[in-house]
């Protein structure tokens, strides 16, 4: 590093989304010829800050300077013109076109007649110079993800970027590809580029960065030189040390085994995480919390349990029976309920009315002749809603117009009215206001007390600590750690989530 000023600097940037303060950054700077890691857990505000730097969002207040000059960045094209490039997790590449075609589209100066041989030769030279070895002639769709990322990086650099922002770049990479990426970044750093590396994995930050800026709840809480940082220091900065703040739930006597997964594995599928060798046991009257960074197999786990995804290996038992090949309908009939995170997309048909949605998920319960016994349905649902303390249901409203909280209440009424014995709740309080979330948590406790088994997947450690009888951590498609209430500590669980240490 030289004593040149920062090439990109953010001062006093504040960004709110409604009541949520996503960013409150006093100062953040990156210098040419360095790699800065922006480290923090999910929701800390790292992506938001960088999206402001890239022109996707505008900060409510604050100033951004490029090479010392204050600028207003109104759009990504503006940012590109100023020499700021950003590589997201989902690349904006066109799979059917080749590498050189994708890059050529992005970079402005093309002659009317394109001579591929010349373009390819030039691009190969450029790619070599930028330490990004990729064959320009291949269609992007055929490249491994790591190579696609290289193309995206190449695109940004040839488009004039002097600052390169990478948003969680290793998330999509295989372990071997990560090495390659770090080598490339180091080489680019040596050539004078400035690199911002967003990550939640502290080992990676420590491995490739020169400086590490730790973010928590929208603020940069510390900036350290990489050689000054240790795992312990970083963890302490990333997570507010909190243990279970409320009373741990009274341990109930262990009930029968409701769900057992033995060495479950799933086949690779586009856009999905792969489960490997996943085993767990869930008993009646128990809430099993599942923690983990999003994308480590939580959704796939829920899908396997609900019968929506066939495991390619392993066995699933429900109440002692081998349910590995059961259909989703059969699993529901047996008393398994699902509370997904996005009810509008996953649990409800928006164009149908509340009444239709209620009966649709109720199996054969309300069959009458060729249609349904609407009277009996209404009576049962009203009873259930009253028991749950919900306001009366608006039967004739289309599901599409309901608020998030009301949708979740609709789903809960429907699912719980069937008296399920196993509930799979996937980020159930996501998107809910505080009161609805609290009441949902209370509900889960109650059903647990009534003898049901609950699998609760959540990103909210406080929520998990408050509700779980046991907690497991999912990482890379397997159970990376298991905790009892006495051991519920954010630092410990957090470090297991990000891979700092494997707790037994």
């Amino acid at each position, binding site marked *: 590093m030289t004593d040149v000023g920062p090439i990109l600097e953010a001062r006093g940037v504040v960004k709110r989304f409604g009541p949520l303060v996503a960013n409150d950054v006093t100062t953040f700077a990156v210098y040419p010829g360095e790699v800065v890691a922006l480290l923090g857990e999910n929701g800390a505000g790292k992506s938001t800050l960088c999206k402001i730097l890239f022109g996707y969002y505008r900060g409510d207040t604050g100033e951004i300077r490029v090479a010392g000059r204050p600028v207003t960045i109104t759009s*990504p094209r503006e940012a590109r013109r100023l020499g700021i490039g950003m590589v997201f997790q989902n690349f*904006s*590449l*066109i799979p059917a*076109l080749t590498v050189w075609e994708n890059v050529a589209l992005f970079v402005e100066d093309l*002659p*009317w007649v394109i001579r591929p041989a010349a373009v390819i030769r030039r691009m190969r030279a450029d790619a070599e110079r930028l330490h990004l070895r990729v064959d320009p002639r291949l269609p992007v769709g055929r490249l491994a993800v790591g190579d696609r990322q290289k193309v995206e990086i190449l695109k940004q650099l040839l488009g004039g970027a002097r600052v390169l922002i990478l948003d969680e770049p290793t998330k999509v990479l295989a372990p071997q590809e990560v090495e390659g990426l770090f080598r490339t970044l180091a080489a680019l750093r040596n050539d004078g580029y400035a690199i911002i590396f967003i990550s939640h994995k502290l080992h990676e930050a420590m491995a490739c960065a020169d400086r590490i800026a730790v973010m928590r709840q929208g603020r940069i809480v510390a900036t350290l030189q990489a050689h000054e940082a240790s795992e312990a220091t970083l963890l302490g900065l990333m997570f507010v040390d909190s243990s279970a703040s409320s009373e741990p739930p009274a341990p109930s006597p262990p009930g029968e085994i409701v769900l057992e997964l033995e060495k479950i594995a799933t086949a690779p599928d586009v856009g999905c995480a792969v489960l490997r060798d996943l085993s767990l046991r869930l008993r009646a009257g128990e809430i099993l919390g599942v923690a983990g960074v999003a994308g480590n197999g939580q959704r796939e786990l829920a899908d396997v349990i609900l019968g929506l995804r066939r495991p390619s290996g392993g066995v699933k038992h429900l109440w002692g029976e081998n349910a590995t090949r059961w259909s989703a309908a059969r699993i529901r009939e047996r008393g398994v309920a699902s509370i997904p995170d996005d009810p509008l997309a996953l649990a409800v048909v928006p164009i149908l009315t509340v009444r239709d949605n209620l009966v649709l998920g109720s199996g054969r319960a309300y069959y009458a002749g060729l249609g349904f016994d609407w009277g009996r349905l209404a009576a049962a649902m009203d009873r259930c809603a009253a028991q749950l303390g919900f306001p009366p249901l608006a039967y004739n409203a289309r599901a599409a117009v309901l608020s998030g909280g009301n949708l979740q209440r609709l789903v809960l009424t429907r699912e719980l009215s069937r008296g399920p014995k196993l509930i799979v709740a996937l980020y159930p309080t996501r998107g809910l206001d505080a009161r609805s979330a609290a009441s949902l948590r209370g509900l889960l406790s109650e059903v647990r007390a009534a003898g049901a088994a609950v699998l609760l997947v959540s990103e909210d450690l406080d929520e998990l600590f408050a509700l779980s009888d046991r907690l497991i951590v999912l990482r890379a498609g397997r159970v990376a750690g298991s905790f009892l209430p006495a051991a519920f500590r954010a630092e410990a669980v957090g470090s297991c989530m990000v891979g700092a240490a494997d707790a037994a």
Partner: protein
Amino acid sequence: MSTTFVAAVASSSILSGTSLLYATLGELVGERAGIVNLGLEGVMLIGAAVGFAATSIAGNPYFGVAAAALAGSATNLLLGYVVIARQANQLAAGLSLMFFGLGASALIGQPFVGAIVPALPRLGVPGLGAFDVLVWLALPTALFLWFLIFRTRWGLALRAVGEDPAAAFATGRRPGSIQYQALALGGLLAGTGGAHLSVALAMTWDEGMTAGRGFIAIALVIFSKWNPLWAVAGALIFGGAEALQLQLQARGTDLSPFLMTMIPYLLTLLVLGMWGWNRQSAAPAALGRSFFGVE
């Protein structure tokens, strides 16, 4: 199988295949931009009717072909307006265009039924037959389109729009404008294909004379994987099937013409099944959504 038979079939294939090729190329350009035109049959009919009428009026077949091309382009732009500017459903709009073409061509052609027009002059090839200028231009046109689509800046933008209009927009291009251009060009070609039937081959105008060639062309676009060079091969093969059938019939052989005419459709279905099996789709991705998506 004598050489004269082979020559007759080859010559006939080339003649039959020409109008099919132009229509296929026209549809191909539009589909590369992400727009499927189910009304291609209607566009061809308009081309045939206008071509015949204009030739009759002006006494000049070249004028007729030019008029037909322009008419085809205008018809395609009509589809373009409805589908691009008004965001209408492409399938419904295409079928409407088909009906439009059926009717408009009947209206335009009616006064000229039975007229005698000068045919497009032909140049002979010894041993093979005599071919008109559109036949001579067919292969160069395909080559030019290949060049246009794969070797020019416009073609790159065209393909980007057909794959991912949002991504194309993000690079500063205007997808709508490019789609209009593609349709205009495609219409020129489709109209020419129609004109070839009335002004070079049959030398008459009959209602509905394209007899489904527009739909064969749509199948052929898929079959040729949206590549103009493969379209040439496909048009020859499919044109050949028709030619073979005509020649066999002329010789009194009892091979059913209908079974042969089925082949393009069945082959295309087979090819689609194979792609589906391999989970690959050569279709431009944005075209894919309404027409090819299975998820």
